[in-house]
């Protein structure tokens, strides 16, 4: 066989800064709000293999049985190769929607299949909703903190993002009510309210039933759309199941976003949106323009997987694994974080949100932590206005229990150094004793400007 030259990995040549300026003149206005930052550069380092990363939002895909994967792919190859390699409908296959109905049914929802669109991951569902609803300058309300991955999407559609504080019962709907009244007085109407009501990313908190009811009522009374993002609903490790907003509302004012990423695999990039028919019509057009259809191959994969009728058992297995990991992380936090630190105790999902004393900036702490080979997400990533700088998001699903213990120990060590140093600088006595008793479920959110 003739020798093939090794491909170069480098991008094609391009010239100097003059060219950059030439391009810059062509950039859309929206790129002006797509910012890169020193913090993002720091996050690039978390990929080093020696770093224990509690920064990701990764489910543990190593638990998925390879034999099962192989069998499904083999069946697809043998029985439906031509179809699985072909384009599919923009809305997604009916069979995929059947799987979605099963997943939503497990949380008590029963949408009309015609209201569903299969998307390339949950992230595309967020993007399509924004594309459909947001004009530049439109108000969008989300939680404080909010899903860090939603911020670039909202910003790229030039939304005016307003964040409503959370506490241990999720978004403070009473604060939202006041905000809505204030906006109304200014003649502004938010396009939608984005919420992750269950096991929120990044805070780990869950919206109470009372607030869920109130939010749905508000939406109805004021004819506002609520976008309910529910990637983690089935990953519950304690407490009572909570009805999704979609179920409480019946789907008139709630757009529901779901995903297979956390219950099966993020690599297959399969998510979905459920919306009232007029909204869905526009979303479908947007999807068509974006990528014509979601990967046919992975839709076949999900269909085969669900046909084995074991998906719920797999979720149960994940729940067991993640519950242990959450407990390990909580225990490690109690053992290693200073007494002034607070953190959430999530009943499910993938994340814990920890808040440190006011004098510790978690972006700076990350630089120190990276030298100790451990990473987390600095809280600022979850705000649009620079708040959150004393908090961090910790993921407990992507690494094993030993790594969680070691990772938290390393973070605790760099925090302790900061605490001690601050004490030396101010003459204040730090509280060196790690807390002994179980931490109360205090939510550490602080408002901007509020003293610690």
């Amino acid at each position: 066989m003739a020798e093939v030259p090794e491909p170069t990995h480098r991008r094609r040549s391009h010239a100097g800064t003059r060219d950059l300026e030439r391009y810059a003149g062509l950039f859309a206005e929206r790129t002006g709000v797509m910012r890169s930052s020193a913090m993002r550069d720091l996050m690039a380092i978390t990929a080093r293999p020696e770093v224990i990363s509690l920064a990701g939002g990764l489910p543990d895909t190593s638990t998925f049985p390879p034999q099962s994967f192989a069998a499904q792919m083999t069946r697809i190859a043998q029985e439906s190769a031509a179809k699985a390699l072909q384009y599919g409908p923009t809305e997604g296959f009916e069979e995929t929607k059947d799987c979605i109905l099963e997943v939503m049914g497990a949380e008590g929802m029963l949408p009309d299949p015609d209201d569903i669109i299969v998307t390339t991951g949950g992230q595309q569902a967020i993007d399509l909703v924004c594309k459909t609803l947001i004009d530049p300058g439109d108000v969008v309300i989300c939680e404080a903190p909010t899903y860090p991955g939603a911020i670039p999407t909202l910003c790229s559609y030039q939304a005016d993002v307003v964040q409503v504080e959370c506490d241990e019962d999720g978004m403070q709907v009473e604060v939202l009510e006041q905000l809505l009244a204030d906006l109304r007085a200014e003649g502004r109407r938010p396009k939608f309210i984005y919420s992750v009501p269950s096991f929120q990313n990044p805070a780990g908190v869950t919206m109470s039933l009372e607030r869920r009811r109130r939010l749905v009522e508000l939406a109805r009374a004021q004819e506002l759309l609520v976008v309910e993002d529910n990637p983690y609903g089935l990953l519950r490790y304690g407490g009572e199941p909570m009805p999704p907003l979609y179920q409480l509302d019946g789907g008139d004012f709630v757009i529901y976003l779901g995903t297979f990423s956390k219950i099966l695999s993020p690599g297959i990039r399969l998510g979905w949106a459920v919306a009232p028919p007029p909204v869905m019509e526009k979303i479908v057009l947007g999807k068509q323009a974006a990528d014509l259809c979601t990967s046919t191959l992975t839709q076949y994969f999900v269909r085969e997987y669900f046909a084995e009728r074991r998906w719920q058992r797999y979720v149960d297995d994940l729940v067991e694994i993640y519950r242990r990991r959450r407990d390990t992380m909580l225990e490690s936090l109690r053992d290693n974080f200073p007494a002034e630190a607070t953190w959430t105790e999530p009943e499910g999902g993938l994340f814990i949100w920890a808040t440190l004393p006011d004098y510790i900036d978690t972006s700076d702490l990350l630089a120190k932590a990276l030298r100790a080979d451990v990473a987390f997400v600095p809280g600022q990533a979850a705000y649009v206005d620079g708040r959150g700088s004393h908090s961090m998001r910790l993921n407990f699903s992507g690494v094993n229990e030993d790594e969680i213990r070691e990772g938290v120990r390393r973070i605790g060590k760099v925090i302790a150094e900061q605490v001690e140093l601050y004490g030396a600088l101010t003459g204040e006595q730090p509280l060196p004793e790690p807390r002994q008793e179980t931490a109360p479920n205090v939510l550490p959110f602080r408002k901007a400007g509020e003293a610690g």
Partner: protein
Amino acid sequence: MKVAVLKGGRSLERGVSLRSGARVEDALERLGHEVLPIDVGPDLVKRLVGEQPDLAFVAMHGVGGEDGTVQELLEILGIPFTGPSAAACARCMDKVQAKDAIEDAGLPTPHWFAFNQTAFREFGAADALGRLEETLGFPLVVKPSRGGSSLGVRFARSAGEVPQALVSAFSYDDRVLLERFVDGRELAVSILGDEPLPVVEAILLEGDRYDFEARYEIGRTRFDVPADLTAEEHRAVTEAALGTYRALGCTGFARIDLILGEDGPWLLEANAIPGLTDTSLLPQAAEAAGLSFEQLVERILDLALEPAAA
């Protein structure tokens, strides 16, 4: 010529370094050189010994690549490399050392005090803070002694903000400095060989001027090349920059950052290996001088091979 491009490494500026490196590799290839890209790790020496490059292009920023560590290895291995020597890199990287050298050369640099963590942890240096705050005045600037970009640099507007700023700065280095804030125009003078390139001015467009992060975001800061300076200002600025370059023993290239105040230039720091990405200041300055990126790279290679540079 076989050129090893050293990039990446473990520094906090790994991301920028990878971008600088990729761009240099492109240019080297277009110039017809054989390129050996190396993401610097534990196998660095083995690879250099095995591959025997004619020259190493150091496109690393921050600790490890810009502080003389890699340069020292290259000197030991006898491989010529781009940019300043190991000793000069070490001096530039450490702001305290650099400021000492600048002051010894009779050049103006804002008044400062330096501390290491031990001073605060064990010797009660906090008790001296009040006195030096009085000397420096507010706002003052707190910086890690060794660190790149804006990482860990904080303004303190009052005594109450100093401890927190110190905790931030100490996140990046065991030694920090507190520096008098000089108000003025922010200029960068890149020097290639012994020639100052057109001066770049950074103009903050929006946001808090005490927010250092804004300075490095496209769209929030505008860079004017060449800066709008009078002949007199230009002379003062380039002379001060060249003086600094020489005082620090730089060869090849470096970028000198300074403030042009009412009373003339105040030297802040020298970057031994400034960024080489498409938005970095050295390439912009070179371009304003009529040098394409390839020409810039070629010139940097020539300088590295000049016997005087060794």
